[in-house]
C-alpha cells in the first residue's frame, strides 16, 4: 500500500470505497508476531509466538484468559489487545453476575466487533491495531472467532494471524478437515506444528511460545513451560517435517497429502490476503 490523499482520516472514504486507516490498522496486525487458533467439537487451542526483545527482558503477554470458558490470543499492538481483554473480561463478569451463567461466545464477539466498528466511524478515534483470536466454549459447542480492527468477525475451524501466519495457514488448510473430531492431544500437537511453520527453521522451544487450552470440563488455562516442552519433545516437533501419517492418531481423516491444498500455495506467494 502506498500513501495517498485519502488516508489521513478514518472518516474519509477513498474514491474506490475504501477506508485506508482501517486497512492500515489491519497491516499492524500482520506485523505482530504470530498467533494461531484451532478447534474441535470439544476443545479450542490457542498458540502464540513470544519473542522477547532482548535476552534481558521478559516477553509480551499475548494470550489472555477472559473467563473460565473463553480466552483470546492477540497479534498487533499488544497495548490495544490488553485494553480490549480488560473490556472482554468486564463483559463476561457482568453477564455472570446478572444471569449466573456464562456469556455465549458469539455474543461476546459481536459486542467486541461493534466496539471496533465505533472506532472506524469517529473522527476523533483510531481503529484498534490488534487482531484477536477468541476461543471459547458455550452451550452450542466450541467456537473460534477472529475479530478484525475493521469491526468484522468470522468463525473459523482454524486460523492464524500475524507475521508469517501464511505458513501456518498452509499447514492448517491441509489438516483442518480432521479437527472437528480431533482429540485434545492431537489438537495441541497440530497447534505446535503450525506454530513451528511460522518460525521458518528456527528451533521451537517452550521459551518462545505459549499454548492455552479450553475444553469441555476444562477451564481456559495457559499450559506451563515444562508441559509445553514435554509435548514438543514427545511429538519430536523440533526439527522434523510433520509426519504425513499419524500412526497413533486414528482420528485424523486426512492421511496422504491431498493435491488441491498444495496448489493453493504458489498462487498466494508475494500477496498477503486482505482480512476483509
Amino acid at each position, binding site marked *: 500500500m502506498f500513501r495517498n490523499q485519502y488516508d489521513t482520516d478514518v472518516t474519509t472514504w477513498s474514491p474506490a470505497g475504501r477506508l485506508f486507516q482501517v486497512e492500515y490498522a489491519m497491516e499492524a496486525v500482520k506485523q505482530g508476531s504470530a498467533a494461531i487458533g484451532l478447534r474441535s467439537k470439544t476443545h479450542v487451542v490457542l498458540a502464540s509466538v513470544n519473542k522477547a526483545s532482548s535476552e534481558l527482558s521478559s516477553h509480551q503477554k499475548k494470550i489472555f484468559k477472559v473467563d473460565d470458558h473463553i480466552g483470546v490470543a492477540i497479534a498487533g499492538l499488544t497495548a490495544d489487545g490488553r485494553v480490549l481483554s480488560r473490556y472482554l473480561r468486564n463483559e463476561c463478569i457482568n453477564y455472570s453476575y*446478572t*444471569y*449466573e*451463567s456464562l456469556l*455465549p461466545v458469539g*455474543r461476546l464477539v*459481536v459486542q467486541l466487533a461493534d466496539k471496533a466498528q465505533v472506532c472506524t466511524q469517529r473522527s476523533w478515534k483510531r481503529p484498534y491495531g490488534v487482531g484477536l483470536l477468541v476461543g471459547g466454549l458455550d*452451550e452450542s459447542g466450541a467456537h473460534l472467532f477472529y475479530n478484525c480492527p475493521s469491526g468484522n468477525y468470522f468463525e473459523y475451524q482454524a486460523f492464524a494471524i500475524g507475521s508469517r501466519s501464511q505458513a501456518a495457514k498452509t499447514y492448517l488448510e491441509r489438516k483442518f478437515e480432521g479437527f472437528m473430531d480431533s482429540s485434545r492431544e492431537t489438537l495441541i500437537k497440530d497447534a505446535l506444528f503450525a506454530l513451528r511453520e511460522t518460525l521458518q527453521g528456527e528451533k521451537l522451544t517452550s521459551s518462545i511460545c505459549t499454548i492455552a487450552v479450553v475444553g469441555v470440563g476444562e477451564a481456559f488455562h495457559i499450559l506451563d513451560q515444562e508441559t509445553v516442552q514435554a509435548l514438543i519433545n514427545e511429538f519430536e516437533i523440533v526439527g522434523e517435517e510433520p509426519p504425513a501419517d499419524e500412526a497413533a492418531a486414528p482420528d485424523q481423516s486426512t492421511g496422504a497429502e491431498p493435491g488441491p491444498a498444495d496448489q493453493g500455495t504458489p498462487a498466494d506467494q508475494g500477496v498477503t490476503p486482505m482480512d476483509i
Partner: protein
Amino acid sequence: MNLADSTQAMNNLLGSEADSQRTLYPYVTGTSVVGIKYKDGILLAADMGGSYGSTLRYKTVERLKPVGKHSIIGASGEISDFQEIMRYLDELILYDNMWDDGNSLGPKEVHNYLTRMMYNRRNKFNPLWNSLVLGGVKNGQKYLGTVSMIGVHYEDNHVATGFGNHLARPILRDEWHENLTFEEGVKLLEKCMRVLLYRDRSAVNKLQIAKITEAGVTISQPYALKTSWDLSAFKNPTAGAEGSW
C-alpha cells in the same frame, strides 16, 4: 446560602414529597403461588384474585405468565408492580431475541435477572412489592426458583409464596416425589390450592394451572375447585368453646 435552600432541605427531611416517589405499601394484591417440579417439567398454580385490602375486588387477574420460550413466572403481591416486572421481562426477552443467534435466556438466567432487579430496588428503599416464582425447562434441565421483594432467592423442588409457604409446602414436603406424572402433579397442586381456599381469606375460587415442558408453555383456562363445608368441625364450630365464634 439563602433561606429558600434551607426550606427545601427541611421539606426533604420531613420526607412527604420524596415518599410519593417510592412504594410504601401495596394496594391491589394477589395471594399465594405454588410451584412444583414434575416428570416432564414444572407446574405452577395461582388463583385469579386481586384483593384491595380486605375486599376481594378483582377476580380475573392472571398471575401466571410465560417468559420467552423456556420459562413461566407467577407473582403474588402488588399487581401493578407485577405488570411492571412483566414489562421489564418482555423487554429482556425482546433484546435476547434480537441477537438472532442460537442462544436464548433460560429459566436460571431469568431468575437471576429478577433477583438482581428485586435486590437493587430494595437497596434503594423502593421495592417491587412481589414474591415471584420462576420455573422452566431448558435442554432437559428443570428449574424452579423463587425471589422475594427483598431479594431473598433460592431454588427447590417445590416453592410457594405468601400463605402457600405455611399451608402448601408442608403438604408438598410429605407428598412430593421425583417423577410425578402430570395428573399426579395437578392433583397435588389442587390439594394445596383447596387448603388455601379454605384457610386463606384472600383466596378466591377461580384458579389457573400453568405447565411448562421442553415443548412449551400451557396455561389452563380458569376453573373452580369443589369444596366441602359439611365437615363436622365446620358444623358446630364452637362446640369446644361456648361463646366463641
